């Protein structure tokens, strides 16, 4: 039996598609992204680039829906222990913290 300690993010795999953001029942995932035009290749295309990724662990209900729905498996269950901190605001885990959890 595995314990759901926390969630980790493989940054390189995330396409900023926002599916996790939309499906999270607690509405605790926040993503910032911008679009870039790629002109190289056969024809120009537009891609999303991830700027910020936050999970508010004070709200997260550990349901795992984000892990299940992520089409690129960028989100994973991490064996790194969850947060226990003196301030409510510190329970918002940023991109660096989430990436560390996926290492």
């Amino acid at each position, binding site marked *: 039996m595995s314990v759901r300690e926390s969630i980790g993010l493989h940054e390189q795999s995330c396409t900023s598609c926002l599916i996790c953001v939309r499906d999270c029942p*607690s509405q605790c995932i926040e993503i910032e992204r911008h679009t870039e035009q790629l002109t190289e290749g056969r024809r120009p295309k537009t891609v999303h680039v991830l700027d910020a990724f936050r999970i508010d*662990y004070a*709200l997260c*209900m550990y349901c795992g829906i984000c892990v299940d729905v992520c089409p690129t498996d960028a989100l994973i269950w991490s064996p790194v222990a*969850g947060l*226990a*901190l*003196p301030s*409510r605001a510190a*329970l918002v885990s940023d991109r660096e913290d989430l990436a560390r959890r996926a290492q």
Partner: protein
Amino acid sequence: MSAAFTPISYRVVAEPTVRVHVSELACCAIEVGSAVALGLLQPEAPQDAPARIDVLLVSGTVTELLAPAVQAQWAAIGEPRLAIAVGACASSGGPYWDSIVVLNGISDLIETSGYIAGCPPDPRRIIDGVLALVPTP
């Protein structure tokens, strides 16, 4: 015959001068109970050394109806004391944050010194969290 209801206090087995009280409000309280079953917490006994600090673990969803009970439990605890929110509900309202009868965390009610993530947190993480949040002697 009538007897006043006295909730059980616990001691942290790894650091017995930390006395723990529990607001048992929802599922997180079951995990605190598991910490007792795992031998991480034990009921306070008369021969225990004096406690250096009292910790209130608010574990579960705080509704408007139950808020006065949490407040009364906190008021009955002497200084030095520390209130810790165990899990998402006590930290922020959790999955019920948008419910009109649920408080957005116990910091709306009492001074809160710690927040332990989880829904619910593992009993070992609850005790790790308590030990990390309590000041060292």
